[in-house]
């Protein structure tokens, strides 16, 4: 039995009473509830560094919660800026003509301000997007009237967006594609050629 027919059975008695009962309040959903784990990384205090140790890069985590936007659409925006420097990410996001583009841009600008104000980052441009991802939040189910007494389901989806900015230059090969230079490729080919064997020969 499809959902539409089930709903139809539910509300088939009288259309007037059906529409009245549909003006309901979904009390079990709390849109103020936020994920807590990701921001807890901001509370970690690292041990004191010695003089000879390499300077530990600062990082800051930030999140935007319960955004009225589907995680499916948000994923493309979130993954676009991974491994970019902050300035480059902001520049790219300015040209993303999606609702998600503006949200992600705002989140990054906020995270940048947080990094400078609270996490001892000296230069605001010296940051790169180390992590940028989205997750599913609540889905509120609404209804939509079709012809006669038929009803369909409408999904009002919400998502969370998470970003982590790290101090320093962005890595050259973020996606680890390992693009080899021409000389390296030549060396590989030579090695391959030398490893050849002619079967049943000397």
């Amino acid at each position, binding site marked *: 039995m499809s959902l539409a027919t089930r709903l139809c059975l539910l509300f088939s008695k009288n259309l007037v009473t059906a*529409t009245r009962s*549909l*003006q*309901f*309040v*979904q*009390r079990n*959903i*709390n*849109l*103020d509830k936020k994920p807590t784990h990701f921001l807890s990384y*901001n*509370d*970690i*205090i*690292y*041990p*004191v*560094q010695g003089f000879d140790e390499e*300077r*530990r*890069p*600062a990082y800051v985590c930030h999140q935007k919660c319960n955004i009225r936007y589907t995680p499916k659409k948000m994923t493309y925006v979130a993954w676009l800026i991974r491994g970019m420097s902050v300035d480059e990410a902001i520049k790219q996001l300015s*040209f993303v*003509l999606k609702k998600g583009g503006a949200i992600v841009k705002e989140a990054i600008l906020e995270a940048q301000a947080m990094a400078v104000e*609270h*996490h*001892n980052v*000296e*230069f*605001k*441009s010296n940051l790169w997007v180390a992590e940028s991802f989205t997750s599913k939040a609540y889905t*509120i*189910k*609404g*209804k*939509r*009237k079709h012809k006669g007494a038929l009803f369909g389901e*409408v999904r*009002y989806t919400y998502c969370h967006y998470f970003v982590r900015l790290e101090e320093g230059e962005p890595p050259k090969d973020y996606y680890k594609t390992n693009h080899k230079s021409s000389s390296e490729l030549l060396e590989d080919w030579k090695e391959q050629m030398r490893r050849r064997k002619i079967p049943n020969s000397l």
Partner: protein
Amino acid sequence: MNCVLLNKLNNFLINVHLSRLRHTKHWNPKFKKQRQEKFFKPDVIKRKHNVNGLSEDILHTKMKERGIYPSKPWQESAIYISCTGDVFEPYIPPEGDGKFSSLSTIGAKQNAEYLMKKTKSYQAVMTIKKFEEAFDVIDFANESLDIYIKGHEILARKQKSKLKGFVTEKLFPELFYNLENKTIIWKFIKSLEPARVVHSRCTNLLTDDNIFAQITVRLHTEQILAVYDRFGRLMHGSEILKKNVLEYIVFEKHLSNEYGQWRLHSKIIPSWMPLGQCITKTFVTN
């Protein structure tokens, strides 16, 4: 010809506004409202709501929605005053203290002034002795140094609950301002000069027998301070550099309270003192 075309294209690209054309609207505006009514979106109650700036009527309906009773206007709550909010009649340290010896003319002058101002402090000490019979000014100076050291050690370890025995409620937020996520290394090395009580005052709050006492102590010590940020990187000071510190610390006690303690209350920073070394930070201005 090509050049003209390119120019035109350039002009077009400059003038074009980036926007997306979406044709999601129905062509006929006639049954717009009926079309809207086909959708039923459940209302989701926002539990935490920003109340600031809402009119009383809206607030009333919102509270009614959630089933919250209005707060009663005569709701009372008890207040306990455990410390004063300020330093009353603060001590004014002599200019250039710690730089001139008492044998020089300026030093001798300062000593003379110090003696002249003593009468009020003496009266205050007598008031303290009414509550604390065994109170002795010299003993207190030594005791204050202990409180000072213990308080700072606990502060460096950030043991908030323990610190309440050494620090008044007025000083507590001042100490913890901007201190979150930071590692502090503080060491007391030695006292360069014996601690000396320079000033004392008593005052009453609300009733005549509710008395608070404040004593200012001059501490000349040698200390080490280093502040590290969240990632263990040095922000301020040094762990290998000893510094001479001359401070005027105000200690306070609630005399009327049987279990009152002498606690750190404030630090006197004279107006003539030059500003201390700031945390080195650079910014790029737009």
